[in-house]
């Protein structure tokens, strides 16, 4: 398979410390790749190497099938660690400066400022912006020159819930409408799960696993939660029917917690109702990325 961005045995040492350990990452065109891992796991270091900001100790990075040399003309937008902005400039002037650098027309500035919600900041200097506004400005700079790949390190840091949603919507919009490929790291895993199409789980510099969002959904455990009038009778009925082993049913108050496939929920409901048990609610709960990540981390311990 052809990958738009790929690392091969990527390794980075700081002194004797192995920060990134022979990482093989595979990012397809159009992916929203979520790089997840705890603080110090090596996420930022990998992203910095992808952008030629840091140099690998060994291994290679390929972008569009070619090894990156640090002087490629591939359009890559990025926001790594703190946003790189001129604090004495306004939001407009910041973008203007980078338009000059990237050789693009400054007509793109106003639309981008509107997209990131900074159109009304006027002459206010970026140094006086809140953390969230600075983050938005960093994202705006990353969007200049219509990049094909955007690498975002903790892009929703410091943003309020509305801002987080705005960034998520923007990522999804650019991905779906313009086919922009994203590599995003965030410790807000549930937030990440709302946009990511592929995950890379990293721990202590090692890439533990790469899996598609659909694959994670398939692998995760599923639970059916049914609130009933008579939980004990319900549990006996379900286990007695042979549809579910008794050990997969747990009673908690007036609820049954059943580990089973979601497709079985309708049959469970019918069985209970047919036996004069009132079902007041039926919920389908699947293990989210956060739980999956915690399990993956737990397996490493």
């Amino acid at each position: 398979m052809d990958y738009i961005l790929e690392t091969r045995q990527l390794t980075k040492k700081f002194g004797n410390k192995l920060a990134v350990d022979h990482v093989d990452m595979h990012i397809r065109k159009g992916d929203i790749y979520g790089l997840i891992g705890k603080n110090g796991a090596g996420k930022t270091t990998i992203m910095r190497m992808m952008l030629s900001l840091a140099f690998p100790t060994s291994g290679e990075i390929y972008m569009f099938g070619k090894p990156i040399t640090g002087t490629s003309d591939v359009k890559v937008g990025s926001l790594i660690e703190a946003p790189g902005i001129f604090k004495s400039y306004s939001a407009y002037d910041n973008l203007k400066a980078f338009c000059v650098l990237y050789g693009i027309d400054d007509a793109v500035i106003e639309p981008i400022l509107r997209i990131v919600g900074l159109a009304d900041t006027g002459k206010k200097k970026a140094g006086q912006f809140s953390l969230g506004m600075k983050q938005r400005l960093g994202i705006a700079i990353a969007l200049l020159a219509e990049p094909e790949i955007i690498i975002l390190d903790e892009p929703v840091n410091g943003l309020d819930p509305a801002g987080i949603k705005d960034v998520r919507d923007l990522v999804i919009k650019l991905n779906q409408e313009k086919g922009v490929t994203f590599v995003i790291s965030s410790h807000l895993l549930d937030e990440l799960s709302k946009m990511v199409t592929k995950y890379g789980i990293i721990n202590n510099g090692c890439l533990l696993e790469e899996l598609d969002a659909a694959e994670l959904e398939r692998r995760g455990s599923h639970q059916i939660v049914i609130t009933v009038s008579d939980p004990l009778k319900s549990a006996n009925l379900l286990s007695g029917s042979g549809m579910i082993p008794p050990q997969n049913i747990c009673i908690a108050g007036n609820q049954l917690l059943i580990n089973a496939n979601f497709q079985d929920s309708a049959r469970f409901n019918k069985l209970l109702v047919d036996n004069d048990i009132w079902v007041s609610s039926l919920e389908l709960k699947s293990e989210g990325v956060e739980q999956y990540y915690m399990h993956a981390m737990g397996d490493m311990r």
Partner: protein
Amino acid sequence: MRQLIAFEYRKLIRSKAIYICMIVMAALSIAGIFITKASMDFINSSFGGSMIGDLDGVDMFNYSGLKYLVSACSSSNITILFAIFVTIFVCGDFTEGTIKNIVARGFSREKVFFAKSMVICTGTIVFGLVAMLVGFVSGTIAFGAGTGFDGEFVLNLLVQLLALIAYTMMNVLLGVLFGKLGGALTLGIIIPLVFPLLIQLLDLAVMLMSDKPAEATQDFFSRFTISSNLSKISAISVDGTDLVFAAVIFAVYILLFTLLGILSIRRKEV
């Protein structure tokens, strides 16, 4: 490269540091000239014009617009002010993190270094020309224009601008090496002040170790420093050999600092 240079020029023009440093330099220069003038007038009036008047005091020290023009660049104030505005300019991208937006878009570190160097050297030349102009105008108002302006004089001024570029490249190197304003600025101020003293100490050591101290060369090492060459040529009439030697020394320093700068930025993680 053209885009990088345009980007850097835009930053330079908008940099307050260069204008503030220029104003401070002009104020110090004007104040120095008029304090000297006032002191001369006071001495002349106190001694009824006889003591220095007899010696034609003003002419004795050759104070004139041209004298201040030719010595404008050798002031220690200039090296300090250079250290300030050059390091602020060079370190700005590192401290504000904007260098990440440059390198990540595929601009090579070497090109970044050359663009920064070219632009800040232009700023340096403007700074030096303003220093010379302020010195000349103030000196002329205080003491008269003076004589000695010829082709060699102009050549001298051009060589002095080379010295300023050498100082600038030293500060660019420090800025790239440290990336942080504090360290680069501190060394940028200290090195031009302390380095010549250390070299003088070495010269002294050479003289003391010589079999015939009286005949030993007094500037065995210091003849190779920027400051000693700059002060040697900061006169209206300069020997042609000294001028050529100074130009070669300045050019060697520019080349050296440029090479070291490229080497240090090439493997710098930003």
